[in-house]
């Protein structure tokens, strides 16, 4: 069977602002569909999402994880050596990074992360009404993450760079052009802030350069990896925490569940990543002609794995649109990806989320919406822009 054709642009602004009708069409069109406006394949069901991401032989990451094939003339850019690479060449560098970001290292940050969380929560309790994105999620992540990594990340700079990078992995649409333009003033800063002389001595980032000296990773890629960490650990964690707060404010019964059992903050975060997946889509490229669930696929063609769609696939999840903090989702939702490229910093994101959410649950009696949340359309992301909330205590 040839792939059924779906004539929807996943990157149209109205689709990005509310991707769920598109996700449903994608899942129901077939196990894989051809997205007509872009000439790429797409999957939105959980089974096929896992199959594509678990098989680098049929579906390579070396063509880039965005919609463009980075190997093609006109699209060429330097590949990300961690993400846009397949095993076995990927395995060595992944191993070095896994050691630098090991659970032992991350556990060592807990006390600091928890104490900063309490300070940030004290501020929002004082404010009463606040923006859950800027005053809580951004404020917190940008306090703890750059220090842990050993880089300096001024808010304006890092947000502009993030917006550029996560639009860049989509098609060259208006969002892409505007984000590129907005990021121009910060490009030089971004380049230099990830060079050896500008990272904190003794930090993980500096260790990467030491690994480079020792020949454990190829020369010249340490700063490429520091940029990866910044890209992977900023916008997605901020918005993941934001989505959790939003869903808790909108579901008072689930908030009550956390008040009764604060240990559930961890599963609340996982469930929010399932419901509102920060990284919406990642691409692979077919290596040769192949078949996926009975559909014939052309060689050398991009295939988008819509993680957010797989995370609400009714074939996998009973009542998929219900936010349920008691649902067992960690390692089953594909919000952190699947397979060899599964998010390497996921335990950092979890530690941050657990610390800040626990501090909120402990200090706040009721968390309520104080207006309608606003989403920021970004080609690759499901991102909150503004989240007005009210925290009531005592």
């Amino acid at each position: 069977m040839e792939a059924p054709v779906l004539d929807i642009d996943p990157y149209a602004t109205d689709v990005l602002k509310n991707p769920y009708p598109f996700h449903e069409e994608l899942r129901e069109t077939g196990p894989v569909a051809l997205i007509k406006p872009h000439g790429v394949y797409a999957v939105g069901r959980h089974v096929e999402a896992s199959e594509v991401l678990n098989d680098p032989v049929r579906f390579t990451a070396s063509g880039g994880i965005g919609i463009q094939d980075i190997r093609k003339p006109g699209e060429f850019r330097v590949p990300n050596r961690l993400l846009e690479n397949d095993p076995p060449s990927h395995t060595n560098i992944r191993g070095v990074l896994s050691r630098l970001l090991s659970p032992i290292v991350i556990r060592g940050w807990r006390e600091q992360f928890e104490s900063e969380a309490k300070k940030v929560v004290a501020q929002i309790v004082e404010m009463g009404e606040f923006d859950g994105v800027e005053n809580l999620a951004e404020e917190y992540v940008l306090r703890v993450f750059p220090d842990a990594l050993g880089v300096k990340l001024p808010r304006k700079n890092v947000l502009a760079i993030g917006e550029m990078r996560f639009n860049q992995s989509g098609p060259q649409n208006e969002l892409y052009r505007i984000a590129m333009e907005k990021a121009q003033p910060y490009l030089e800063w971004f380049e230099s802030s990830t060079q050896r002389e500008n990272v904190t001595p003794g930090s993980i980032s500096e260790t990467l350069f030491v690994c480079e000296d020792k020949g454990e990773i190829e020369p010249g890629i340490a700063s490429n990896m520091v940029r990866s960490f910044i890209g992977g650990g900023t916008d997605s964690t901020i918005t993941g925490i934001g989505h959790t707060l939003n869903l808790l404010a909108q579901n008072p019964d689930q908030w009550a569940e956390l008040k009764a059992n604060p240990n559930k903050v961890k599963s609340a975060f996982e469930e929010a990543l399932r419901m509102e997946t920060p990284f919406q889509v990642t691409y692979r490229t077919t290596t040769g002609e192949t078949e996926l669930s009975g559909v014939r696929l052309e060689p050398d063609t991009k295939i988008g794995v819509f993680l957010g769609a797989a995370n609400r696939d009714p074939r996998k999840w009973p009542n998929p649109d219900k936010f349920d903090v008691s649902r067992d989702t960690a390692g089953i939702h594909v919000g952190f990806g699947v397979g060899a490229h599964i998010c390497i910093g996921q335990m950092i994101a979890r530690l941050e989320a657990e610390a800040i959410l626990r501090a909120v649950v402990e200090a706040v009696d009721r968390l309520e919406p104080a207006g309608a949340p606003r989403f920021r359309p970004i080609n690759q992301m499901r991102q909150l822009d503004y989240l007005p909330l009210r925290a009531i205590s005592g």
Partner: protein
Amino acid sequence: MPKVTFINPDETRVELEVPVGTSLMRAATAHGLDGIVGDCGGGLTCATCHVLVQEEFLPNTPSMTPNEEQMLDFTAMGRQINSRLSCQLVMTEELDGLTVRIADPQL
């Protein structure tokens, strides 16, 4: 259905029926065995589902991936000769009767 016995850090024993194809980590967390944390849900990034496999069963356990090999070095208890991450121990008929000790601490 094949059975697995978990020995808790306080020496109490819990026997669970584990369906073929289900990992010991999922079985343990689904039954509320607190000693198995399993924060990452089997993604081989947290090293908090550490168990010590009774040695006679070691030959029947699946071989280790390089990723599991590496993560065992990052367990809180420290690696023992019979250490495994229980998310990687997927139940088979051959593992019926398996006994594992839950490592302590996990975090």
